[in-house]
C-alpha cells in the first residue's frame, strides 16, 4: 500500500543519511554543494577497505569520517574566501574533480567499473539505528544555543554577527559536520548496494540531495526525513504516469519550493503561527481599540532612507 515496503523503507533511510549530510551545511545558510564528494569518500573507503584490505564495517565507519573531516578542513581554506553563487560553483567543482580522480586512479578505485563485492551487506536495523542517532543529535543541536546561532546565521549572517555569532567559524564546523555525516552515509551506501561506481557521485546526486533538503526544509531536523520520504516514494506513486513521471516530479518540487522557502516543515510552522496570530488579532480587537497614531508624528518622522 502506498508503495511502502521493506525496500522503499531501506532506500528512504539511506536517503535520510545522505540528505542529512547536505542539510548540515545548508542549514547554516552557505550554499556549499561539495557534500557528495564526502559521500564518495565514505563509499570508496568502504570499497577499498573491505575488498582490498579486509577492513570491518566498524573500522570503515571510523576511518571514513576522519578522512572526510580532514579533507573538509583542507578544502574549506580556499572555499571560505568565496560566497554566494561563486561558492556553489566552486563546491560543485570539488565534486567534479573528485569524480575525475575516481575515474582515472583505476589502480585504487577500479576506474569506471568501480569496486564490487563490498562485504558485509547491511540491513534495515543498522540503517534505522544510524538515522535515529543522527536525527537525535541534530534535533538536540537545533534546540540548543548552537541551534539558535545556526538559525540566525542562515536567516541573516549580518544580524548573527551583531548578536555575537562567529559566522565564519560556525559555517566551517557545519561543513566538517556535513563531511563526517556524508562519509558515514557513503560507507552505509557502499555496503547496502555492495558496489561503488564513480557515476553515482556526480552532479545528479548533488541536485537530488539538494532537492530533498529544500523540499523538507533547511530549518528543521525533520526536514531531511520528510524530504527523503517524498523523494523516495514519489517515483512509486507516480508510476502510472509512465514516461511523464520525471516531469510530474519536477513540477511538484517547483510548487513546494514556490509555496515555502523553508520547505514543508517551514510551511507548516508558518501556518501554525498565522492561525494563532489570527485568533490573537480577533481577541485583541474585541478587548481594546488599537493605539492612536498621530498623523503629525508620522509626517515628522517620515524621512526614511528607503
Amino acid at each position, binding site marked *: 500500500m502506498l508503495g511502502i515496503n521493506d525496500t522503499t523503507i531501506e532506500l528512504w533511510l539511506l536517503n535520510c543519511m545522505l540528505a542529512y549530510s547536505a542539510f548540515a551545511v545548508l542549514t547554516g545558510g552557505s550554499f556549499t554543494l561539495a557534500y557528495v564528494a564526502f559521500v564518495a569518500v565514505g563509499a570508496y573507503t568502504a570499497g577499498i577497505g573491505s575488498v582490498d584490505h579486509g577492513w570491518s564495517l566498524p573500522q570503515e565507519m571510523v576511518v571514513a569520517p576522519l578522512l572526510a573531516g580532514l579533507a573538509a578542513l583542507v578544502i574549506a581554506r580556499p572555499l571560505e574566501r568565496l560566497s554566494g553563487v561563486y561558492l556553489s560553483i566552486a563546491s560543485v567543482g570539488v565534486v567534479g574533480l573528485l569524480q575525475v580522480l575516481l575515474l582515472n586512479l583505476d589502480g585504487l578505485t577500479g576506474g569506471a567499473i568501480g569496486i564490487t563485492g563490498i562485504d558485509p551487506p547491511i540491513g534495515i536495523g543498522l540503517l534505522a539505528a544510524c538515522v535515529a542517532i543522527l536525527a537525535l543529535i541534530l534535533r*538536540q543541536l537545533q*534546540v540548543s544555543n548552537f541551534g*539558535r546561532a545556526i538559525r540566525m546565521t542562515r536567516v541573516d549572517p549580518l*544580524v548573527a*554577527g*551583531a548578536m555575537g555569532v*562567529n559566522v565564519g567559524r560556525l559555517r566551517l564546523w557545519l561543513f566538517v559536520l556535513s563531511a563526517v555525516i556524508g562519509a558515514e552515509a557513503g560507507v552505509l551506501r557502499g555496503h547496502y548496494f555492495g558496489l561503488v561506481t564513480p557515476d553515482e557521485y556526480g552532479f545528479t546526486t548533488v541536485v537530488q540531495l539538494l532537492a530533498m533538503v529544500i523540499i523538507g526544509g533547511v530549518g528543521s531536523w525533520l526536514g531531511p526525513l520528510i524530504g527523503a520520504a517524498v523523494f523516495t516514494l514519489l517515483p512509486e506513486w507516480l508510476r502510472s504516469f509512465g514516461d511523464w513521471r520525471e516531469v510530474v516530479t519536477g513540477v511538484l518540487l517547483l510548487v513546494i519550493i514556490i509555496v515555502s522557502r523553508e520547505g514543508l516543515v517551514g510551511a507548516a510552522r508558518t501556518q501554525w*503561527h498565522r492561525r494563532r496570530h489570527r485568533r490573537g488579532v480577533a481577541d485583541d480587537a474585541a478587548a481594546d481599540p488599537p493605539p492612536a497614531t498621530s498623523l503629525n508624528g508620522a509626517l515628522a518622522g517620515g524621512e526614511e*532612507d528607503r
Partner: protein
Amino acid sequence: MSLLALQGVTLDYGAVRAVDHVRTEVAAGEICALVGPNGSGKSSLLNTISGFVPISDGAIALDGVDVTRARSYELARLGVARTFQLIRLLPGLTVSENVAAGCYAELRRSGLGALARSLLRPGRISPEVAARVDEALERAGVARFADDLVEELPFGTQRRVEVARAIVSRPRLLLFDEPAAGLSEHDLENLEEVIVAEAARGCAVILVDHHLHFVLKVCPRAVVLNFGNVIFDGPSPAAVEDEEVKRAYVGS
C-alpha cells in the same frame, strides 16, 4: 574614563574618505547624537564602531580595551548592541524568538564540554533569561505580539522589536541607526523612554538620526559630521545655532 574612545578614526571606501580622523569620546550613561547631512559619514562611523567595517586608520577603545580590529561578533560579546537603519529582524521567527536572539552572546559557551552538554540537555532558555526577554518586550511595548511572526507586524512595531532585541542583553554601548525614522508620535515616546532608561542604567547611547526634533529632545549632546569630519561637538541646543552646522545643512 570614557566608555568609548575614538582616536583619529578614518575609513576609506576606495578613493572616497567616508570618515576622516574622527576623535571623540562617549562616557557611560551619556546619550550622544551623531548627526549630519546625508553622506556625512554618520552611518559609516556607526558601522566601524560596531565592527561591521574595518577602519583604515586610527584606534577605537571600549572601556580602555583596544577594539580597533575587533569584528562585530567580538564587540557583541563585549556588550555592544545596535539597531539597523533598515530594520533587520529574523523573518520566520516570532517576536520573542527575535528578542531572545539578543541574549545569544551571553548564553553561548564554547568548547567540547559545552557541545556535550547541549547534546545531553539542550534545554530552552533559562528562566532568568526568559524573564529578561519578557521585560524587554514589555518595555518596548510589544509584549502582546510575543508569539507573532515578525514579518506580519507593521513597521513601527518591527522597530520596537528591534529595540527590544538591542536592550535585552543589557549592553554597555547601544548604537541606534535612525531609530526614529518613520515612527508615530506614540512609538517615539516609547523609544525616548527606553533610551533614557538605558542611559540611567549606565549604558552609553549613540543615536544617529535625521529627525532633529527628536534628537534635540532626547540627546543632551550632539556630534555633527560633515564630509566625514567632526564640525561640532557640544550641547545639542548650541548645535542648531552653530554657523558651520547651519552651512553644512543648507549648503554654502
